[in-house]
Protein backbone atom coordinates (compact mmCIF):
# COMPACT_ATOMS: atom_id res chain seq x y z
CA UNK A 1 0.00 0.00 0.00
CA UNK A 2 1.31 3.39 -0.76
CA UNK A 3 -0.62 6.48 0.16
CA UNK A 4 -3.82 5.07 1.47
CA UNK A 5 -3.28 4.97 5.20
CA UNK A 6 -4.73 7.88 7.11
CA UNK A 7 -4.95 8.88 10.74
CA UNK A 8 -8.20 8.28 12.46
CA UNK A 9 -7.24 9.65 15.83
CA UNK A 10 -9.37 12.70 16.43
CA UNK A 11 -8.22 15.25 18.99
CA UNK A 12 -9.53 14.88 22.49
CA UNK A 13 -10.96 18.40 22.65
CA UNK A 14 -13.21 19.34 19.74
CA UNK A 15 -13.90 22.98 18.98
CA UNK A 16 -15.94 22.66 15.83
CA UNK A 17 -17.85 25.35 14.01
CA UNK A 18 -21.17 24.56 12.35
CA UNK A 19 -19.19 23.94 9.16
CA UNK A 20 -17.34 21.10 10.85
CA UNK A 21 -14.12 23.09 10.97
CA UNK A 22 -12.02 23.49 14.08
CA UNK A 23 -12.71 26.97 15.42
CA UNK A 24 -9.04 27.47 16.34
CA UNK A 25 -8.03 26.99 12.73
CA UNK A 26 -10.76 29.36 11.57
CA UNK A 27 -9.49 31.85 14.15
CA UNK A 28 -5.87 31.68 12.96
CA UNK A 29 -6.92 32.21 9.34
CA UNK A 30 -9.05 35.21 10.37
CA UNK A 31 -6.08 36.52 12.34
CA UNK A 32 -3.77 36.04 9.35
CA UNK A 33 -6.30 37.90 7.19
CA UNK A 34 -6.20 40.84 9.60
CA UNK A 35 -2.40 40.68 9.67
CA UNK A 36 -2.40 40.98 5.86
CA UNK A 37 -4.13 44.32 6.25
CA UNK A 38 -1.66 45.46 8.91
CA UNK A 39 1.36 44.65 6.78
CA UNK A 40 -0.12 46.08 3.60
CA UNK A 41 -0.73 49.35 5.48
CA UNK A 42 2.94 49.40 6.53
CA UNK A 43 4.11 48.48 3.01
CA UNK A 44 1.82 51.17 1.55
CA UNK A 45 3.35 53.76 3.84
CA UNK A 46 6.84 52.67 2.79
CA UNK A 47 5.96 52.86 -0.91
CA UNK A 48 4.20 56.22 -0.61
CA UNK A 49 7.31 57.81 0.93
CA UNK A 50 9.76 55.90 -1.27
CA UNK A 51 12.14 58.28 -3.01
CA UNK A 52 10.89 61.29 -1.04
CA UNK A 53 13.63 61.51 1.58
CA UNK A 54 15.22 64.95 1.59
CA UNK A 55 18.45 63.79 3.21
CA UNK A 56 20.43 60.53 3.12
CA UNK A 57 21.49 57.84 3.67
CA UNK A 58 19.36 56.44 0.87
CA UNK A 59 18.57 52.79 0.08
CA UNK A 60 20.07 52.45 -3.40
CA UNK A 61 21.72 55.79 -4.20
CA UNK A 62 24.86 57.60 -3.11
CA UNK A 63 24.11 60.86 -1.22
CA UNK A 64 26.55 63.65 -0.39
CA UNK A 65 25.76 65.86 2.59
CA UNK A 66 26.00 69.44 1.19
CA UNK A 67 26.96 70.94 4.55
CA UNK A 68 29.75 68.53 5.49
CA UNK A 69 30.65 66.93 2.16
CA UNK A 70 30.29 63.50 3.74
CA UNK A 71 29.45 60.85 1.16
CA UNK A 72 26.86 58.26 2.20
CA UNK A 73 26.97 55.00 0.27
CA UNK A 74 23.77 53.13 -0.68
CA UNK A 75 22.73 51.64 2.63
CA UNK A 76 21.05 48.34 1.71
CA UNK A 77 23.26 45.28 1.85
CA UNK A 78 21.70 42.90 -0.67
CA UNK A 79 24.06 39.90 -0.15
CA UNK A 80 23.40 39.85 3.61
CA UNK A 81 19.64 40.23 3.16
CA UNK A 82 19.61 37.54 0.46
CA UNK A 83 21.26 35.17 2.93
CA UNK A 84 18.69 36.00 5.62
CA UNK A 85 15.88 35.52 3.08
CA UNK A 86 17.25 32.08 2.23
CA UNK A 87 17.38 31.20 5.93
CA UNK A 88 13.74 32.24 6.40
CA UNK A 89 12.65 30.26 3.33
CA UNK A 90 14.41 27.19 4.70
CA UNK A 91 12.72 27.73 8.07
CA UNK A 92 9.38 27.31 6.30
CA UNK A 93 10.57 23.98 4.93
CA UNK A 94 11.66 22.91 8.43
CA UNK A 95 8.25 23.96 9.78
CA UNK A 96 6.27 21.83 7.33
CA UNK A 97 8.58 18.92 8.10
CA UNK A 98 7.90 19.45 11.83
CA UNK A 99 4.16 19.43 11.17
CA UNK A 100 4.42 16.30 9.02
CA UNK A 101 6.52 14.61 11.72
CA UNK A 102 3.86 15.33 14.37
CA UNK A 103 1.02 14.24 12.09
CA UNK A 104 2.77 10.95 11.34
CA UNK A 105 4.10 10.41 14.85
CA UNK A 106 2.45 7.03 15.37
CA UNK A 107 3.68 5.48 12.12
CA UNK A 108 6.51 2.95 12.33
CA UNK A 109 9.89 4.35 11.40
CA UNK A 110 12.09 1.57 10.12
CA UNK A 111 14.99 3.35 8.47
CA UNK A 112 17.34 6.06 9.69
CA UNK A 113 15.92 8.48 7.13
CA UNK A 114 12.39 7.87 8.35
CA UNK A 115 13.48 8.44 11.94
CA UNK A 116 15.09 11.74 10.96
CA UNK A 117 12.05 12.86 8.97
CA UNK A 118 9.80 11.75 11.82
CA UNK A 119 11.62 13.69 14.54
CA UNK A 120 9.40 16.62 15.47
CA UNK A 121 11.99 17.87 17.97
CA UNK A 122 14.67 18.06 15.28
CA UNK A 123 12.52 20.07 12.85
CA UNK A 124 11.11 22.35 15.54
CA UNK A 125 14.65 23.05 16.70
CA UNK A 126 15.78 23.69 13.12
CA UNK A 127 12.89 26.12 12.57
CA UNK A 128 13.58 27.97 15.81
CA UNK A 129 17.31 28.19 15.03
CA UNK A 130 16.59 29.45 11.51
CA UNK A 131 14.19 32.05 12.91
CA UNK A 132 16.76 33.16 15.46
CA UNK A 133 19.42 33.34 12.73
CA UNK A 134 17.12 35.57 10.69
CA UNK A 135 16.70 37.82 13.73
CA UNK A 136 20.49 37.88 14.11
CA UNK A 137 20.82 39.06 10.50
CA UNK A 138 18.23 41.74 11.18
CA UNK A 139 20.01 42.90 14.35
CA UNK A 140 23.27 43.08 12.36
CA UNK A 141 21.55 45.07 9.61
CA UNK A 142 19.89 47.51 12.00
CA UNK A 143 23.13 48.03 13.93
CA UNK A 144 25.17 48.65 10.78
CA UNK A 145 22.53 51.10 9.50
CA UNK A 146 22.66 53.09 12.71
CA UNK A 147 26.47 53.16 12.53
CA UNK A 148 26.22 54.44 8.95
CA UNK A 149 23.92 57.25 10.05
CA UNK A 150 20.45 55.89 9.32
CA UNK A 151 18.12 56.01 12.30
CA UNK A 152 14.34 55.89 12.55
CA UNK A 153 14.29 59.70 12.86
CA UNK A 154 16.87 60.49 10.18
CA UNK A 155 14.61 60.63 7.11
CA UNK A 156 11.41 59.23 5.59
CA UNK A 157 13.22 56.14 4.38
CA UNK A 158 14.56 55.41 7.88
CA UNK A 159 11.16 55.93 9.52
CA UNK A 160 9.22 53.70 7.13
CA UNK A 161 11.98 51.10 6.75
CA UNK A 162 12.56 50.56 10.47
CA UNK A 163 8.82 50.52 11.19
CA UNK A 164 8.07 47.95 8.49
CA UNK A 165 11.00 45.62 9.07
CA UNK A 166 10.80 46.15 12.84
CA UNK A 167 7.17 45.00 12.89
CA UNK A 168 8.14 41.99 10.81
CA UNK A 169 11.03 41.20 13.15
CA UNK A 170 8.66 41.43 16.13
CA UNK A 171 6.42 38.87 14.43
CA UNK A 172 9.39 36.56 13.82
CA UNK A 173 10.32 36.92 17.51
CA UNK A 174 6.77 35.95 18.53
CA UNK A 175 6.99 32.97 16.17
CA UNK A 176 10.27 31.80 17.70
CA UNK A 177 8.75 32.04 21.20
CA UNK A 178 5.76 30.02 19.99
CA UNK A 179 8.13 27.37 18.61
CA UNK A 180 9.96 27.25 21.92
CA UNK A 181 6.68 26.55 23.74
CA UNK A 182 5.96 23.71 21.28
CA UNK A 183 9.42 22.33 21.93
CA UNK A 184 8.80 22.53 25.69
CA UNK A 185 5.57 20.53 25.23
CA UNK A 186 7.40 18.02 23.04
CA UNK A 187 10.12 17.50 25.67
CA UNK A 188 7.63 17.44 28.56
CA UNK A 189 5.10 14.92 27.30
CA UNK A 190 5.84 14.40 23.60
CA UNK A 191 3.78 15.79 20.75
CA UNK A 192 1.50 13.19 19.18
CA UNK A 193 -0.70 13.24 16.09
CA UNK A 194 -3.50 14.43 18.39
CA UNK A 195 -1.53 17.64 18.84
CA UNK A 196 -1.11 18.21 15.12
CA UNK A 197 -3.58 21.10 15.12
CA UNK A 198 -1.44 22.95 17.70
CA UNK A 199 1.56 22.64 15.39
CA UNK A 200 -0.55 23.36 12.29
CA UNK A 201 -1.72 26.69 13.74
CA UNK A 202 1.81 27.76 14.67
CA UNK A 203 3.01 26.61 11.23
CA UNK A 204 0.39 28.78 9.51
CA UNK A 205 1.59 31.78 11.50
CA UNK A 206 5.21 30.98 10.68
CA UNK A 207 4.55 30.63 6.95
CA UNK A 208 2.63 33.89 6.99
CA UNK A 209 5.66 35.63 8.47
CA UNK A 210 7.68 34.07 5.64
CA UNK A 211 5.34 35.28 2.87
CA UNK A 212 5.37 38.79 4.32
CA UNK A 213 9.16 38.75 4.06
CA UNK A 214 8.96 37.53 0.46
CA UNK A 215 7.03 40.71 -0.37
CA UNK A 216 9.25 42.99 1.73
CA UNK A 217 12.43 41.57 0.19
CA UNK A 218 11.23 42.39 -3.31
CA UNK A 219 9.58 45.76 -2.67
CA UNK A 220 12.10 47.19 -0.23
CA UNK A 221 15.41 45.59 -1.14
CA UNK A 222 15.37 44.62 -4.80
CA UNK A 223 13.21 47.22 -6.56
CA UNK A 224 15.21 50.42 -6.90
Amino acid at each position, binding site marked *: *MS*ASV*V*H*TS*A*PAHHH*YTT*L*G*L*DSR*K*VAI*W*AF*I*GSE*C*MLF*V*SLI*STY*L*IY*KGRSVIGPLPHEVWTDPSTGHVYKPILN*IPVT*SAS*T*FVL*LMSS*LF*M*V*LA*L*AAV*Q*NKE*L*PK*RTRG*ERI*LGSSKLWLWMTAIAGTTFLGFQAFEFTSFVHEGLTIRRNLFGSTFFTLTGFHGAHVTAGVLWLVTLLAIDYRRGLTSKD*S*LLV*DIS*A*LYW*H*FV*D*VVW*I*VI*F*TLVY*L*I*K
Partner: protein
Amino acid sequence: MDTHASITNLPDSAEGQAHAPHGEVEHAHPTWSTYWKVALILTLITVGEVWAYYIPSFVASRSFVPTLLTLSALKFAIVVMFYMHLKYDHRLFRVLFTGPLLIAGLTLIALMFLFGHLYIKVM
Protein backbone atom coordinates in the same frame (compact mmCIF):
# COMPACT_ATOMS: atom_id res chain seq x y z
CA MET B 1 4.17 -4.75 -2.11
CA ASP B 2 4.89 -3.23 1.24
CA THR B 3 1.94 -3.67 3.53
CA HIS B 4 3.22 -1.27 6.19
CA ALA B 5 2.52 2.41 5.93
CA SER B 6 5.83 3.94 5.05
CA ILE B 7 6.52 7.30 6.60
CA THR B 8 8.07 8.66 3.43
CA ASN B 9 5.24 7.92 1.04
CA LEU B 10 2.31 8.65 3.23
CA PRO B 11 0.22 11.74 2.71
CA ASP B 12 1.24 13.97 5.56
CA SER B 13 -2.19 14.34 6.98
CA ALA B 14 -5.68 13.17 6.75
CA GLU B 15 -6.37 15.49 9.57
CA GLY B 16 -9.22 16.96 7.64
CA GLN B 17 -11.06 13.69 7.75
CA ALA B 18 -10.34 13.25 11.44
CA HIS B 19 -11.39 16.79 12.30
CA ALA B 20 -14.51 17.02 10.23
CA PRO B 21 -17.48 15.37 11.82
CA HIS B 22 -20.08 16.87 9.49
CA GLY B 23 -18.81 15.36 6.29
CA GLU B 24 -16.54 18.28 5.48
CA VAL B 25 -13.48 16.65 3.96
CA GLU B 26 -10.17 18.38 3.42
CA HIS B 27 -7.83 16.86 0.86
CA ALA B 28 -4.66 15.13 2.02
CA HIS B 29 -1.64 17.41 2.35
CA PRO B 30 1.40 17.04 0.07
CA THR B 31 4.17 14.55 0.68
CA TRP B 32 7.67 15.27 1.95
CA SER B 33 9.11 15.07 -1.54
CA THR B 34 6.70 17.84 -2.59
CA TYR B 35 7.93 20.01 0.30
CA TRP B 36 11.56 19.55 -0.77
CA LYS B 37 10.72 20.37 -4.38
CA VAL B 38 8.81 23.49 -3.30
CA ALA B 39 11.82 24.61 -1.22
CA LEU B 40 14.10 24.10 -4.22
CA ILE B 41 11.79 26.11 -6.49
CA LEU B 42 11.57 28.94 -3.93
CA THR B 43 15.36 29.01 -3.63
CA LEU B 44 15.84 29.07 -7.39
CA ILE B 45 13.35 31.92 -7.80
CA THR B 46 15.12 33.89 -5.05
CA VAL B 47 18.49 33.30 -6.72
CA GLY B 48 16.97 34.50 -9.99
CA GLU B 49 15.63 37.66 -8.34
CA VAL B 50 18.97 38.53 -6.76
CA TRP B 51 20.79 37.73 -10.00
CA ALA B 52 18.46 40.09 -11.90
CA TYR B 53 19.27 42.83 -9.36
CA TYR B 54 22.94 42.71 -10.40
CA ILE B 55 22.33 43.06 -14.17
CA PRO B 56 22.41 46.86 -14.77
CA SER B 57 20.88 46.69 -18.25
CA PHE B 58 17.98 44.64 -16.93
CA VAL B 59 17.51 46.91 -13.90
CA ALA B 60 17.30 49.89 -16.26
CA SER B 61 14.79 48.17 -18.52
CA ARG B 62 11.01 48.48 -18.25
CA SER B 63 10.58 44.78 -17.55
CA PHE B 64 12.63 44.78 -14.32
CA VAL B 65 9.90 45.81 -11.88
CA PRO B 66 7.11 43.69 -13.44
CA THR B 67 9.45 40.67 -13.52
CA LEU B 68 10.37 41.01 -9.85
CA LEU B 69 6.76 41.59 -8.82
CA THR B 70 5.68 38.50 -10.78
CA LEU B 71 8.40 36.34 -9.24
CA SER B 72 7.53 37.62 -5.77
CA ALA B 73 3.82 36.91 -6.33
CA LEU B 74 4.73 33.44 -7.57
CA LYS B 75 6.75 32.71 -4.42
CA PHE B 76 3.94 34.09 -2.28
CA ALA B 77 1.38 31.87 -4.01
CA ILE B 78 3.59 28.76 -3.78
CA VAL B 79 4.13 29.16 -0.03
CA VAL B 80 0.45 29.85 0.61
CA MET B 81 -0.77 26.96 -1.53
CA PHE B 82 1.72 24.25 -0.56
CA TYR B 83 3.20 25.16 2.83
CA MET B 84 0.05 26.76 4.25
CA HIS B 85 -2.00 24.03 2.55
CA LEU B 86 -4.53 26.52 1.27
CA LYS B 87 -4.76 24.55 -1.96
CA TYR B 88 -5.92 21.52 0.02
CA ASP B 89 -7.89 23.07 2.87
CA HIS B 90 -11.50 24.16 3.20
CA ARG B 91 -12.63 27.04 0.97
CA LEU B 92 -13.64 29.09 4.02
CA PHE B 93 -9.94 29.43 4.86
CA ARG B 94 -9.31 30.63 1.31
CA VAL B 95 -12.02 33.26 1.73
CA LEU B 96 -10.68 34.33 5.14
CA PHE B 97 -7.22 34.83 3.62
CA THR B 98 -7.87 36.10 0.10
CA GLY B 99 -10.72 38.43 1.10
CA PRO B 100 -8.65 40.71 3.35
CA LEU B 101 -5.67 40.30 1.01
CA LEU B 102 -7.76 41.51 -1.94
CA ILE B 103 -9.11 44.48 0.03
CA ALA B 104 -5.60 45.34 1.22
CA GLY B 105 -4.16 44.99 -2.29
CA LEU B 106 -6.81 47.21 -3.83
CA THR B 107 -6.25 49.79 -1.07
CA LEU B 108 -2.52 49.69 -1.82
CA ILE B 109 -3.12 50.28 -5.54
CA ALA B 110 -5.58 53.10 -4.77
CA LEU B 111 -3.01 54.76 -2.49
CA MET B 112 -0.34 54.46 -5.19
CA PHE B 113 -2.64 56.31 -7.60
CA LEU B 114 -3.59 58.85 -4.95
CA PHE B 115 0.02 59.72 -4.16
CA GLY B 116 1.11 59.78 -7.79
CA HIS B 117 3.26 56.63 -7.88
CA LEU B 118 0.91 55.12 -10.46
CA TYR B 119 -0.91 57.13 -13.09
CA ILE B 120 -2.94 56.71 -16.23
CA LYS B 121 -1.98 58.82 -19.23
CA VAL B 122 -4.92 60.86 -20.47
CA MET B 123 -4.56 62.16 -24.03
